[in-house]
């Protein structure tokens, strides 16, 4: 099973990218969590460019989503919501609407912030955006607050309660993927 992990910030040392690497290291056997680092290359959505031949990074994003069994987003929170760069990528991925690779794609949302609430608003809004785009978004999430205090001197997440919640999120996501496979097999 292949899970595409998409961080919502692009800076080097992104807390959310680190969080996803932490998740990848704890993925159960048979589950491969692949970090996608193409967010910065996605151009601003422009309907004039949304043609039969879209920008190459967009093609790669759509293919990466199509080839993944599930999606795991980790988002920070900017001004109480989803970072524009991440929303922009989802807007591209949601098109063409009739053939979006997001349709019925199992997806989970987690998030980390240096604040006290762990990007909980951004996670809620990201779930709304993904659901509206057609994805199957699982309920389980992880608001990881004061994330800068959770990393050790090597930049790794210290063990903690978040690890149990990560297991819950991964179980929900892989469960949705399994259910989808069973449906496809029965069809």
């Amino acid at each position, binding site marked *: 099973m292949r899970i595409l992990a998409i961080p919502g910030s692009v800076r080097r040392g992104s807390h959310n990218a680190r969080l996803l690497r932490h998740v990848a290291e704890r993925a159960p056997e048979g589950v491969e969590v692949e970090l996608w680092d193409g967010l910065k290359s996605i151009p601003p959505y422009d309907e004039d460019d949304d043609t039969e031949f879209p920008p190459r990074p967009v093609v790669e994003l759509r293919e990466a989503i199509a080839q993944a069994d599930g999606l795991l987003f980790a988002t920070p929170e900017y001004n109480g919501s989803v970072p524009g760069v991440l929303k922009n990528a989802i807007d591209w991925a949601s098109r063409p609407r009739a053939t979006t690779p997001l349709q019925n794609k199992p997806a989970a949302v987690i998030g980390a912030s240096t604040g006290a609430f762990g990007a909980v608003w951004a996670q809620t809004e990201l779930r709304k955006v993904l659901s509206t785009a*057609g994805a*199957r978004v699982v309920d389980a999430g992880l608001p990881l607050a004061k994330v800068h205090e959770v990393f050790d001197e090597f930049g790794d997440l210290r063990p903690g309660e978040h690890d149990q919640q990560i297991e819950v999120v991964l179980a929900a996501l892989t469960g949705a993927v399994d*259910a989808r496979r069973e449906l496809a097999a029965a069809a």
Partner: protein
Amino acid sequence: MSTTQIAPSVPVGTWSVDAVHSNANFEVEHGGLSVFRGGFKPVDAKLISDEDGLTLEGSVAVDTITVDDENIRPHLLSPDFFDVERNPAVRFRSTEISGEADDLTVSGELSMAGFTVPVQARGRVRGPVSLGDHGDKLALSLEATIDRTAFGMVWQMELPGGHDALANDVRLLVDLELAKE
């Protein structure tokens, strides 16, 4: 099957849908103000008239849904609404049909989005008429109002004016042309 009062103008036999001349549409209030419409096509349906009365069965494939705004369609197919992958069809089966030809009451069960809920429709049946080589035809028109939240479709957004984006009540409008087998 419960006792039914047979609509007098439905001769005994099996009446199958003429899909070209049949429709299954829905209407839902948008923003507390206007009407948003959509539909499914083709409609599969069969009306059986026998000594026990009338029985109606019908279904549509969810992925045939059409709405005016193509941007909304993937959301309607998603788990927030029909969850097409897990529930590819909408099905109806009557449990009782009673009344007169121009004032029918059709009770039955509607299965949609993983839920099966009793519904009641009102409508009328016209015909039969003979269309020569095309045989005998009936027309059956039905309307029902359902609560979409009973089918797990609880999605909602509040508009700036305070209205809900989408009403919970959804009006179903089914028009069938049926040919005698």
